[in-house]
Structure formats: C-alpha cells, structure tokens
C-alpha cells in the first residue's frame, strides 16, 4: 500500500515501547503491531486521536504517502 505508518520511528523518537503505548491507549499489542508493520487496511479516527495524543504528534507525522509503492 502507498500509505505507510511511521509508528516505529515515532516510538523510537519518544523512547516508548509498543507495549507501553498499547497500555496507554487501550489497544491490544497485536492490533498495534498490525498498525506498526503496515498490515492495517484502515485506521479509525479514535485510534489516530489516541496515538497522536500519547505521542504528542500530528496525524501527518504518523502517516506517509509514497508514490512508488
């Protein structure tokens, strides 16, 4: 998919683990892992809001569009 989720970069920048983020936003690690590995087909606004709130970022910081993919 041309849209890539840059959750791994943000987690690295914020020094937060996937487990910690999952606990904070109330989403299972399995689901968050799907998001992180770019296997997700859609993201709910509520998930996007929770991730942005906890990582203190904008949705644009989380998503990236690549023309070539």
């Amino acid at each position, binding site marked *: 998919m041309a849209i890539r989720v840059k959750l791994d970069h943000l987690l690295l920048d914020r020094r937060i683990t996937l487990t910690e983020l999952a606990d904070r936003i109330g*989403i299972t690690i399995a*689901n*968050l892992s*799907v*998001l992180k590995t770019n*296997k*997700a*087909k*859609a*993201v*709910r606004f509520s*998930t996007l809001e929770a991730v942005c709130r906890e990582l203190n970022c904008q949705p644009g910081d989380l998503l990236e569009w690549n023309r070539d993919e």
Partner: protein
Amino acid sequence: MTPIKNPIPSLLVVLLNVAWWLVALSMALTMCIGALSAFSPIRGGYFDIPISFSVDPRTLPVRAPSLGIEGAQIEHARGTVRFSPPEGASLVVPALLGLVVMLALALFVVGQLRAVFRTLRDGRPFVPANATRIRWIAFAVMAGELGRAVVMFSSNSYVMTHFSANGLRFDARPDFNVFTIIYGLIILAIAEVFRTGTRLDEDQSLTI
C-alpha cells in the same frame, strides 16, 4: 475475538462425517465389485433401468366419463424396467463405472460441505476458502444434474433399442431438471456474496 462454539454446526459436522464415510465405503465397495466382475462375471441379481414410455391408446384407452373425456393418452410416463442381465452382457462395468462417478461427485460435495461446517463450528466461517468451496458445490450440483440427464438419456436409449412391450412405446428423453440448475446458480450467487463477505470481514479485522 474468541470463537463461539455453536452446537448445530457441530452436530452437522458429525452427520457429514458419517455421510462422508458411508459414501466413501460405498464407493470402495462398488470399485471392488467392479474389479471382481472383470475377472468373474456376476451371476444372479437384477438391473433397474430408468425408462420413459408412452402408452398406446388403442391398447389401453384412457377416459374420464364424468368429465366427458374420451381418448386421453398417457405420454412420457416415467418408471424403471427390472430384469436379470443375460450372461455375457457387458452391462455391469458401465453401470458400476457410472455409479462410481456419481459417488465420487457426492463424496466431493459432502467433503466440501464438511469443510464449510467445520469452519462454522470453529466460529470462523468468513474465510476465502469457504467461498471457493461453496462455488465448487454449485458447480458439482450443476454437473451432477447434467450427468444425471446423460445417464437417463443413455438408459432410455438402451431400453428403446433392446426392449419392446405390447402397447408401450419407449422413448429417450434426457429428463433435464432446469430447477436443479437454477439451484446451482443460486448457490453460485451465494458463493460470490460470501466472497464479498470474507473481504469485508478481512477489512474489518484489519481496521485498527
């Protein structure tokens, strides 16, 4: 999501398992009889062959005096002719071969149904494989009906060629059941709806 166990699919899986084994055993038995008959001809027993016939109105007049109907005719009646095969007649092998083909088709359909109900029992029916299985069931239903029509026509032709009876006129008709083909098409449509359902389910499960 934890799969929910449903007792009805579990029961159906058991019934389909029994049906599958029964059909498989029948098929194995038929093949054994076929193999044996190749070495030593089977004596005794009889054949039932489906027939289509019309009754000569001069031999058997049909009337309804209360309705004022005279000279009605019996046309394209269905039945079977039962006979003991003469020695040396090569009927056993083609008959058993036809039976094996029909049993193989039944085995295939029951096998596919069993696989579908297994996924239903496990609480995860919306898998792409089920759409394919349902599609194959639809094709098998339609192929089975076509095969049945061919068998009917062949047996009718056989009787028409070799048998005769006073007052009866044997004819050869395929007895093609359009409704079975329509059922097959309905199952095919359900398979395609199911395929769309599996896509939606996949999308739903990958929406975070």
